[in-house]
């Protein structure tokens, strides 16, 4: 299986300048690998830094040292040193990210929000809209809501809009931060199906899953971030 | 009517010829030369206090004073008429201070100072037309900053002029500016032709006579040398047009001249007469008659009314 992403000797700490410049070390010596077609669960108890690590993989958080390389356009891109342009391009074409929170501009219709990543990739608008409609239908968002801003939706609905947006483009790498957290059984099944489809087309997936059932259903392996916590091996 | 009047012996020796001192006249002539060299460009000059208030033609008077010689024959018109207060006093001013001949006949004049009109009769190469100008800056309507308007002239940034015309059309359905209608001079400078009716704009184009413009309060001089291209600004789909009248001149029957509307009584009766009094009376002398003529030679005092601006 081909390698899509690897982290080498990654360390991360936060320096809180506003609080007497106290430094909070989080990780050190992280070695992580993600291959095409696999789905790795990031594990560790609450507060262990799973989300922090995932954000580092997305270059939302910086690394204190080490490197994270992503196979982007056939070349390895070290996102800890890459230019903002390169990272934005990587996010646009290579790496999808389903976060727990929906952050959108007020007033933009749900359908537009879902279709946007595909349109940004150059897909014809109508094709993108069609796929957005399919996904929203599969995720049971009632059609009457499609022209409304998701900011007025319930938490579960917002989460599903987020998932639709994350899955609309066939990203080679996908990061999923608790994609099924607030979903009912039916919708959880749909999300699991989407993940399986992504795996089947060869996507490399790293996810944080709050329940064993989901994890066991889709994951091909797991990665315990706790073992790289600073002081964990003392 | 006497056609040429010499005012003998009235030139007071208390004044220099044509009132202004020679140094001042030289200064104005230098400004005039520069203005002629750069058609349409506003040349600043050190305008003097004149023995008349601003708005009465102090700019035109200074220009006239700088170019007039003892052999010249001066005609002065205000709104086309020779006999209005302003025209009469300026004519008398030069008769007194320069002892020059004056006339009401366009053809006889070598210098014509004017406010708000260009004579109907075509001018010749040996004539000079001096305009009195209140506000020389055509861009002032939209740009109050002098530093900025100068820069706009320097860099030929004239889009703003069309903004004004655009506003006209959007409000009135046509370009409603009827006087002080902006022109492009020699394909370079946008110029305010002074508050003449746009009817007169085509006369400025390739005119044989030298045209000089003086703004007393604003202290600016500009000029159009003989045979200068003068184009009225417009839009492709709203081309420049001059006013036209359904009526003819009530006195001389002219259909090709600029007409003033005259209210005759309180019952709404009115008539139209040529604003150019000399043109009108010459036509009447030649036997032309308008509908309201009654074969009575009419005085020329009917033209005090404002033009249809």
């Amino acid at each position, binding site marked *: 299986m081909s390698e899509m992403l690897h982290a080498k000797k990654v360390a991360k700490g*936060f*320096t*809180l*300048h*506003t609080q007497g*410049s106290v430094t909070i070390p989080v990780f050190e010596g992280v070695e992580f690998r993600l291959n095409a077609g696999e789905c790795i669960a990031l594990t560790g108890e609450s507060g262990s830094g799973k989300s922090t690590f995932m*954000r580092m993989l997305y*270059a*939302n*958080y*910086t690394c204190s040292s080490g490197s994270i390389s992503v196979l982007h356009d056939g070349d390895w891109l070290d996102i800890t040193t890459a230019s*903002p*342009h390169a*990272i*934005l*391009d990587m996010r646009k074409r290579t790496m999808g990210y389903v976060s727990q929170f929906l*952050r959108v*501009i*007020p*007033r*933009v219709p749900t359908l537009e929000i879902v279709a946007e990543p595909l349109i*940004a990739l*150059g897909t014809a608008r109508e094709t993108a809209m069609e796929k957005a409609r399919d996904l929203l239908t599969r995720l049971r968002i009632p059609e009457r809501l499609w022209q409304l801003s998701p900011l007025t939706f319930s938490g579960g609905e917002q989460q599903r809009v987020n998932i639709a947006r994350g899955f609309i483009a066939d990203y080679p790498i996908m990061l999923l931060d608790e994609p099924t957290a607030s979903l009912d059984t039916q919708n959880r099944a749909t999300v699991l199906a989407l993940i399986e489809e992504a795996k089947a087309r060869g996507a490399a997936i790293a996810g944080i899953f709050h329940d064993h059932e989901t994890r066991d259903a889709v994951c091909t392996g797991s990665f315990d971030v706790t073992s790289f916590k600073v002081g964990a091996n003392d | 009517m006497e056609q040429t009047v010499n005012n003998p012996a009235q030139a007071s020796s208390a004044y220099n010829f044509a009132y202004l001192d020679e140094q001042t006249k030289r200064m104005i002539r230098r400004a005039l030369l520069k203005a002629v060299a750069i058609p349409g460009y506003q040349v600043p000059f050190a305008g003097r206090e004149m023995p008349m208030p601003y708005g009465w033609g102090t700019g035109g008077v200074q220009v006239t004073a700088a170019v007039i010689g003892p052999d010249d024959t001066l005609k002065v018109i205000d709104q086309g008429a020779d006999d209005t207060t302003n025209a009469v006093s300026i004519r008398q001013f030069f008769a007194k201070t320069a002892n020059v001949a004056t006339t009401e006949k366009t053809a006889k004049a070598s210098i014509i100072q004017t406010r708000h009109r260009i004579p109907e009769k075509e001018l010749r190469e040996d004539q000079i037309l001096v305009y009195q100008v209140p506000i020389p800056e055509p861009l002032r309507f*939209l740009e109050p900053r002098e530093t900025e308007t100068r*820069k706009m002239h320097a*860099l*030929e*940034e004239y*889009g*703003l002029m*069309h*903004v*004004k015309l*655009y*506003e006209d*059309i*959007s*409000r009135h359905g046509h370009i409603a500016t009827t006087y002080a209608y902006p022109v492009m001079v020699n394909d370079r400078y946008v110029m305010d032709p002074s508050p003449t009716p746009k009817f007169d704009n085509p006369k400025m184009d390739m005119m044989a006579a030298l045209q000089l413009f003086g703004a007393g309060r604003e202290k600016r001089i500009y000029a159009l040398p003989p045979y200068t291209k003068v184009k009225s600004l*417009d*839009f*492709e*789909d*709203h081309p420049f047009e001059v006013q036209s009248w359904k009526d003819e001149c009530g006195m001389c029957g002219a259909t090709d001249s600029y007409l003033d509307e005259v209210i005759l009584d309180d019952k709404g009766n009115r008539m139209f007469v040529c604003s150019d009094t000399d043109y009108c009376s010459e036509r009447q002398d030649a036997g032309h008659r308008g509908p309201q003529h009654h074969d009575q030679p009419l005085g020329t005092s009917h033209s005090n009314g404002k033009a249809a601006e």
Partner: protein
Amino acid sequence: MTRSNEPLLRVSDLTMMYGDRVGCRNVSFELRPGEVLGIVGESGSGKSTLLRSISAQQEPTKGTVEYHTRIDGIRDVYQMSEAQRRLLMRTDWAFVHQNARDGLRMNVSAGANIGERLMAVGDRHYGNIRNAAENWLGKVEIATERLDDLPSTFSGGMQQRLQIARNLVTSPRLVFMDEPTGGLDVSVQARLLDLLRGLVHDLNLAVIIVTHDLAVARLLSHRLMVMQRGEVIESGLTDQVLDDPQHAYTQLLVSSILQN
């Protein structure tokens, strides 16, 4: 939309001194077509000084501003003739002022405001100009019946949108915005942000936006520069700077303003 790798704007070592006082110091960055750069910092941090110097409105004490012009390739904007520079500023560049009154002609109609730039570059067909104005009024979500109304009869949000239309009618590639949402109601702000983002995307505009509102910066900009006392103290991807700020001042800024 493809983003060219060729920079549209290159600012090198830009310094603006007012006597001994620092306006901004040693600022360097590049901007590509379609890229939105946010400049954040508190009042007096040098954001607006920097914007003025970059946008050819105030010659810097030191440093260069180079722009990739459509015709002549890369040019130092302060080495251009004034005529060239002013032409650039009213065709390929646009300025959206915080106070719409600074960017509009209040004594002519909305249509004339939008049409001015077209007329400035030689458009002389009234019907075409009017159609373009009407079209743009629609794009910025102002009822086309308002075409002949004076901007003074518009609400603040409408004036701001009119200012945007007036600027974008010549299809500029680089837009400078100084606190474009400042002074507007929150609901009006949201609408304007949505509109701006759509236009930026659809027209592939490069934008430099000065704002003290981090939420605005997050929604509009790809990259951020954080300024303090005239210097850029942190820069990078917008979400990286806001979510994982490294510099003490940025942390303070983020922790004091961003509460959702």
